[in-house]
């Protein structure tokens, strides 16, 4: 068996999602290689070589990998695919965009969002917004997998893998990135944060969202999140959305403020260790999953909470 993990990185370092993916890949057994492709990604490749269990890093550099477009990257992965029984990516916007393109060309199923490895061909994955867990067995020669990063520990350090440069593929010229607006934040990354403070429609406005939640998140060194309703209403940026179709989080502590607890939202946060809900409606469904529920007006309770945390 031989496993190829396609790294998500920013050139300088690996994204934390890649480390969780390597943690999952280690459970498959067999030799573990990492592919790092970018315009200039030597530092990220070096970082991949230092991850425990990795025995080889494939590094491909070309200007047309700078934007990590799926078309060119898929062609590169396919050129290497022959040597592997498993090709594994994180279930992030990067991995979800790329993995099916690879699987289709290999004429194999892709196994999305696995939360557990039962055997090299058998995996558990959530379906129906996490209301059911399916155990699936793949009969294909190559398994193309995306990993729910919150379900796996990050791989450790201490590897000393060699880095091999591989030839880049041609620029297919099918698409081009013409702009990127990334949300700047000094806060921890939402999907990997230990504490998440999320606001919903109950916040009432973008101004309230930041006036009330920023101080709380500051005190807790927390990432900020939001419900779909809050994002749709413009209270928070789109990449704050937690849920079935947003980010999946599993922090130590999740605070849901003014969020009703729709199944699509719960799908993204119900694996948090401790859930706190603040809501003025005592019958809000969020209280069915909350470890600690506080019924009342968030406009009074949130400032009190920030004050109490000192």
């Amino acid at each position: 068996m031989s496993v190829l993990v396609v790294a998500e990185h920013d050139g300088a370092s690996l994204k934390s999602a890649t480390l969780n993916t390597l943690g999952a890949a280690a459970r498959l057994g067999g030799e573990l290689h990492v592919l790092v492709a970018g315009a200039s990604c030597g530092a990220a490749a070096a970082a991949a070589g230092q991850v425990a269990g990795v025995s080889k890093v494939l590094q491909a550099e070309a200007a047309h990998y700078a934007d990590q477009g799926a078309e060119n990257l898929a062609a590169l992965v396919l050129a290497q695919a022959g040597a592997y029984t498993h090709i594994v990516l994180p279930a992030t916007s990067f991995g979800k965009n790329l993995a099916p393109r690879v699987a289709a060309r290999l004429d194999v199923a892709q196994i999305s969002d696995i939360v557990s490895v039962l055997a090299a061909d058998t995996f558990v994955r959530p379906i129906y917004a996490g209301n059911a867990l399916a155990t699936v067995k793949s009969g294909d020669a190559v398994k193309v997998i995306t990993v729910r990063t919150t379900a796996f520990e990050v791989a450790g350090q201490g590897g000393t893998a060699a880095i091999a440069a591989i030839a880049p593929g041609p620029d297919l010229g099918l698409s081009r990135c013409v702009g990127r607006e990334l949300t700047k934040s000094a806060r921890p990354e939402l999907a990997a944060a230990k504490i998440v403070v999320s606001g919903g429609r109950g916040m009432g406005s973008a101004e309230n969202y930041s006036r009330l939640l920023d101080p709380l998140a500051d005190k807790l060194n927390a990432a900020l999140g939001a419900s779909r309703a809050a994002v749709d209403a413009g209270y928070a940026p789109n990449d704050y959305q937690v849920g079935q179709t947003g980010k999946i989080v599993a922090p130590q502590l999740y605070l849901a403020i003014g969020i009703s607890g729709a199944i699509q939202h719960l799908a993204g946060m119900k694996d948090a260790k401790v859930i706190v809900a603040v809501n003025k409606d005592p019958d809000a469904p969020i209280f069915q999953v909350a470890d600690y529920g506080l019924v009342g007006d968030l406009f009074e309770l949130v400032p009190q909470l920030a004050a109490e945390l000192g």
Partner: protein
Amino acid sequence: MRVLVAVKRVVDYNVKVRVKADGTGVDLANVKMSMNPFDEIACEEAVRLKEAGIATEVVAVCCGAAACQETLRSAMAMGADRGVLVESDADLQPLAVAKLLQAVANKEAPQLVLLGKQAIDDDSNQVGQMLASLMGWPQATFASKVVLGGGVATVTREIDGGLETLELKLPAVVTSDLRLNEPRYATLPNIMKAKKKPLGILKPSDLGVDVSPRLATLTVAEPPRRAAGVRVPDVKQLVDKLRNEAKVLP
């Protein structure tokens, strides 16, 4: 230009599904079915392209059992010109659907195929990317804005860190995210009109596609339940519990 839109019939998003006691799947008997919400958004976008004079024809495609005709009628009530049902009672997995859509796309020669980013039943998030790959076309997944002109599609995508804008050569595949648009409700006159629009039916064998499943589902189980929580009367007690009982705060 012609636009193809893929619509799937799924359990309505408001239904809380139950796992069958024998662990073979979820109970779909007497459950409300609807068009996948992301596909409504894709369909709305296609219809808007037609209303803007950019698309000349919108063709909705659905793969699945005979009941999918209803889903296609909904798409036509929103404004699609005709429907194509690829009828099969098999368990159609994303790779099979992508191959069926590829065969339909080869017949219909669209300049753009719109799909949802994800079907809310299997939560796969695969078919659009697979179709683009099989066609050798560019893709833009998770779209929140689509502008067509001059042989290219300029698409804004919702990615993990924020937003990204891609320029794709046409023909191309685009999958919709939640904020692409707000789908319209079909009006009664349009629902009536949709009944008369053409709906073609094909079989996977007509298209030469092998739809055998590649993944076997061994069991389907309930996720672990969270233990019941408690109500706390005030902020002081909440913080005390978080510190001393749950030990998640210093």
